[in-house]
């Protein structure tokens, strides 16, 4: 019986490993393609015979094509994405934590109404606000600006949920004790609530990072100038501007854009599972 069980376990393990190798193939293709010299791009073989970093070099230094030097402002894409992600994360975490604390530990007039209003609109798709928000930003001249990329994304009701739920578990006695010591509400927030909510803030930060880093539709709508493109919009645009030669460069650009998120997953494996179970799947 135990032996049959063990054989079954190995069988399933082997099967899953095989499946995982096939499953990974698109990533293997991406990495292999990014290391190929031009001559091998369409060779039909997956792995390069003479691997080179040429495709990566061109992303930053451009390349010569029929006497012209073509440049993709890839470094700009990268800088823009990093900047937008960092600012956006800081703003979202701050506004979410403030609001979550307000909902978790205070009683006030209109609380129920404000709360349900937030939930109600949270369920609406992006498309419900896309056109008016675009119009608003073009009207006040913020197209092609960082603020257009960052501001709408700061409204994050999901994050408030997660944090509020977590903050509710912080004992009121801690807050009362700090109050007796003469701490004001914002001091309490900063010195007690924020440090104690660190795990929840961490989880939120991860999910938010992934969302902003990879966001595509909104940046596509508000960005026109190439120097302002984020990685997602920039890589998508590479296809259109240079036709066929671009396979290798596109994959090199993709590899560099994907490395930070893969590193994040590897470093934060635990937090991911915890994040997903945080909502506790109760009926």
């Amino acid at each position, binding site marked *: 019986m135990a032996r049959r069980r063990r054989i079954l*376990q190995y069988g399933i*393990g082997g*099967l*899953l490993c095989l499946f*995982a190798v096939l*499953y990974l193939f698109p990533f293997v293709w991406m990495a292999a*393609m990014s290391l190929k010299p031009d001559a091998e791009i*369409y060779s*039909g073989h997956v792995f390069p015979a003479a691997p080179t970093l040429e495709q990566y070099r061109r992303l930053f230094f451009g390349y010569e094509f029929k006497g012209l030097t073509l440049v993709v402002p890839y470094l700009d894409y990268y800088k823009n994405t990093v900047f937008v992600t960092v600012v956006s994360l800081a703003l979202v975490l701050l*506004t*979410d934590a*403030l*609001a979550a604390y*307000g*909902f978790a*530990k*205070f*009683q*006030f007039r209109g*609380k129920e109404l*404000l709360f349900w209003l937030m939930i109600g*609109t949270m369920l609406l*798709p992006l*498309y*419900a606000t*896309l*056109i*008016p*928000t675009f119009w*608003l930003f073009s009207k006040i001249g913020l197209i092609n600006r960082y603020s257009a990329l960052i*501001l*709408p994304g*700061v*409204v994050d009701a*999901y994050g408030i949920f*997660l944090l*509020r739920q977590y903050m*509710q578990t912080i004992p*009121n006695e801690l807050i009362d004790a700090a109050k007796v010591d003469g701490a004001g*509400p914002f001091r309490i*927030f900063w010195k007690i609530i924020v440090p104690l909510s660190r795990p929840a803030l961490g*989880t939120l930060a991860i999910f938010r990072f*992934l969302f902003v880093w*990879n966001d*595509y*539709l909104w940046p596509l709508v508000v960005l026109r100038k190439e120097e302002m493109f984020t990685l*997602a919009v920039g*890589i*998508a645009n590479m*296809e259109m501007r240079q036709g066929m030669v671009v396979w290798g460069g596109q*994959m090199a650009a*993709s590899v560099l*854009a994907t490395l930070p998120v*893969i590193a994040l*997953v590897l470093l934060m*494996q635990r937090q*991911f599972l915890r*994040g*997903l179970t945080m909502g506790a*799947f109760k009926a």
Partner: protein
Amino acid sequence: MTSLSGIYPRPEVVSPGAPAPLPRRGRGLTPYLFISPFYLGFVLFQLLPIAFSLYLSLVEWNGGPAMQFVGLGNFRTLIADAKFWNAFRVTLIITVACTLLGTIGALLLAVLLERVADWLAGLLRVIFFLPSVTSVVVIAYVWRQLYSTDYGYFNTLLEGMGLARQNWLGDPQLQLAALIVMLIWAGLGWDALIITAGLRSIPPELYDAAKVDGANEWSEFWGITLPLLRPTLTFVLVTGVIFLWGIFAQPQLLTGGGELRESQTIALYLYDVGFRYHKFGYASGMAVVLSLIMFVSGYLNFRFVKADVEY
């Protein structure tokens, strides 16, 4: 499924005043100060745009000074618009195929992953999770290369087996299938991880009790696992259908919607109408309808799967 909102873990919806009554802390304005930064953005970028969107769905407007009120005219046009119904059909096929196959696949994967040694399961979970964190642009372009008619790997494989090359992304029938395969691949690990969390929340005593009663694994799965997994599956299905009805980037980048709109989803059509032809009124009307479709199909899934979960 990775999506704008789907990327979040499920928050538990509890009425804000539900637990023990809160002592009043802070006087007067304090709580409002805490929530005001959020609500400032909320009003500007959520509430007002929604209201404006609803209004726009009743007008004809190209963004210029002239805005003409047409009542329900946009919706009447929509009902008679063959391009809209085509997009509806395309999106429906994608939604049904991906949720059905994707959820079954993810369930199978999650259950099997529980059966292997922990270290291996951990490694495999990371592998299956990778597409969920990868940019949709990257995913779509890698698959575009794999599907490419002339130099794509799938056709190289077919040729190696002595079969004919296929025009994966051009053929009217194949392009939808190609899109669906990519979407299932991309969403599998995410769904499996959520189902794993659901599996872990089933009390192990139930299985022990069933073993005492002489149940085999098959009857355990149907008798215990599946019924107790219902809330989790509900969540996967509801977020899945909402995400899929709104799908935009993947078809746009993989096929561009197809030469003859063979893979043009509602969101793609909406984007075309709004941002290419600047028919903001009509596009807003479509956004209202799309929101309704998402709401209704999410609700139907909820009712259908969630029915009598008491345990």
